[in-house]
């Protein structure tokens, strides 16, 4: 019933044979786990690596092109023959018209200003939501008092969609600009807050105990252990929050805006500039994609240990 007496195993010459599969576990400085060796080996054969990458990526690339191509072809023919089968393509701009208008708008300062205004609103609203969401999430997750006082309020407000706040926000805030930023903030605040709380709650207790044994103060525990341990969850919250921030921003701009890419899109409809509607939509999609990409890059930069298992031990 006792596990085989460990000391006997080592004095037994048969142990040498058993050592093979356990090499990675043996604490010899010269022996590296497989994952650490991988990049070094890969660097020796870059050409073969590129070829292999091409071979694996090419089918995917072709299918992506085909997938998008089919959509554009359908769009082209549907608008060309003014398809009308419940969905109506009579007034829908063709890909060609959209392209022409896009080329024209690319020269227009006014259009860039709309993009700039929207991005600024996102940065401010999302930025405040990040600071407040993470800070309050850490407090609510870690301290019972903060949880008791704040959580019921947030749970009550959370089901109200940010867009439902638009009329109230217009009355609350002195300018249209601040009320739109407020809506953007609201949209991203709750996903960030909830994911941060979830992150704090899922910190491995043994890490907290280890930190306490190493003489960590209460504040140090929050900053040096709870925060970094929660980072993966926080970044999940940021990614979701960024998506909701764009949804809220565009809706708010369409309802109460002056300037901004959502306002531009809605205005295009009012002015019967139908091609611009499609351009507005595409730009919104691209900007949203870029913002999500920025979050992902920031996450990889701040959490190098998450990529560590694949990319070796370099800093």
């Amino acid at each position: 019933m006792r596990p085989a007496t460990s000391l006997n195993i080592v004095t037994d010459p048969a142990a040498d044979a058993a050592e093979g599969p356990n090499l990675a576990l043996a604490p010899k400085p010269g022996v590296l786990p497989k994952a650490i060796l991988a990049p070094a080996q890969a660097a020796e054969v870059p050409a073969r690596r590129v070829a292999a990458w091409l071979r694996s990526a090419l089918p995917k690339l072709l299918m992506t092109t085909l997938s998008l191509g089919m959509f554009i072809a359908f769009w082209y023919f549907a608008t060309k023959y003014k398809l009308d089968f419940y969905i109506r393509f009579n007034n829908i701009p063709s890909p060609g018209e959209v392209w022409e208008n896009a080329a024209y708008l690319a020269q227009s300062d006014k259009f860039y200003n709309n993009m700039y205004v929207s991005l600024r609103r996102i940065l401010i609203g999302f930025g405040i939501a990040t600071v407040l969401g993470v800070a309050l999430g850490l407090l609510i997750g870690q301290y019972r008092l903060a949880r008791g006082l704040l959580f019921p309020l947030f749970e009550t407000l959370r089901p109200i969609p940010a867009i439902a706040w638009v009329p109230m926000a217009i009355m609350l805030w002195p300018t249209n600009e601040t009320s739109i930023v407020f809506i953007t903030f609201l949209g991203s605040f709750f996903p960030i807050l909830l994911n941060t709380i979830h992150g704090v709650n899922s910190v491995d207790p043994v890490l907290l105990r280890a930190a306490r044994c190493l003489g960590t103060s209460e504040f140090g525990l929050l900053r040096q252990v709870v925060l970094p341990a929660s980072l993966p969850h926080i970044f999940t919250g940021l990614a979701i929050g960024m998506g909701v921030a764009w949804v809220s921003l565009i809706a708010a701009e369409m309802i109460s805006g002056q300037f901004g890419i959502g306002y531009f899109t809605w205005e295009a409809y009012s002015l019967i500039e139908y091609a611009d509607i499609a351009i507005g939509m595409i730009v919104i999609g691209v900007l949203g994609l870029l913002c999500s990409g920025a979050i992902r890059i920031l996450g990889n930069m701040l959490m190098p240990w998450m990529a560590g298992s694949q990319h070796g031990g370099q800093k």
Partner: protein
Amino acid sequence: MMSPTDDTPSATGHILIDHLRVRFGSKAAAVEAVSDVSMEVKPGEFVSIIGPSGCGKSTLLNVVAGFVQPSEGTVSMDGKPTDKPSADRGMVFQQYSLFPWLTVRKNVEFGLKQKGLDANHREEAARTLLGLAGLLAFENHYPDQLSGGMKQRVGIVRALATSPQVLLMDEPFGALDAQTRVVMQQILTNMWQRFRISVLFITHDIDESIFLSDRVYVMTARPGMIKAEIPIPLPRPRTPDMALSPEYLQIKQQLRELITEESLKAMGGELKDSGLAGFDIEVGPKGVAELV
């Protein structure tokens, strides 16, 4: 080489446990985990506690660490009660407890940072310690890139970095394979002799407790009491060959008898009375299904 206990012993790291009781839960439904335990770890001594699983030996260690408060009795180190965790009692856990977001070296520096040491001194101290443990080549790796044995070595180095008076170890090698475990035991012995520090070591492995300790306390099944105190007079440095010596085998036999008795008790009354006789039942070709 002489044992550090024979040598001029370090004056600090004296743990005294006096009539300790630990109960969990409210009055009516309270469960006693540790029952009237008195024991000590002398300065510079290596002491193991061995007992069946669930006997309260981890609870005992948690009281010394300052995570659990005594219900009765006192636990002190160098005269001061151990009522909250502190860097003068380093702890090594059974589960890997390295901070995954810090590199090996930053993990070791963590405790020094809490002490307010500047970055240069931290780095120097951490590199020295990692060098002693043969881990300097891995200073910039993240914990997830290390094997289990390496992780535990970093855990030990991290606990030693703040120069604690005592090292508390809760089955630190329990998750390692047999070969790695033996190597780790030797590394731990070397570091213990170098640092002249008291160690309180929890294990359920008899060989491990003999190989490492100056003294072994055997605990009873829950509620945990001290059943026996066995000195290990084997000379140091100890080598794996000693496992074949008559003294070693005699101690091992003695400990095995004490533990088996408690393990059976821990597994329940029916086993205690009839031993393992219940397993003699005749089972036909259909197996246990036939009996049900």
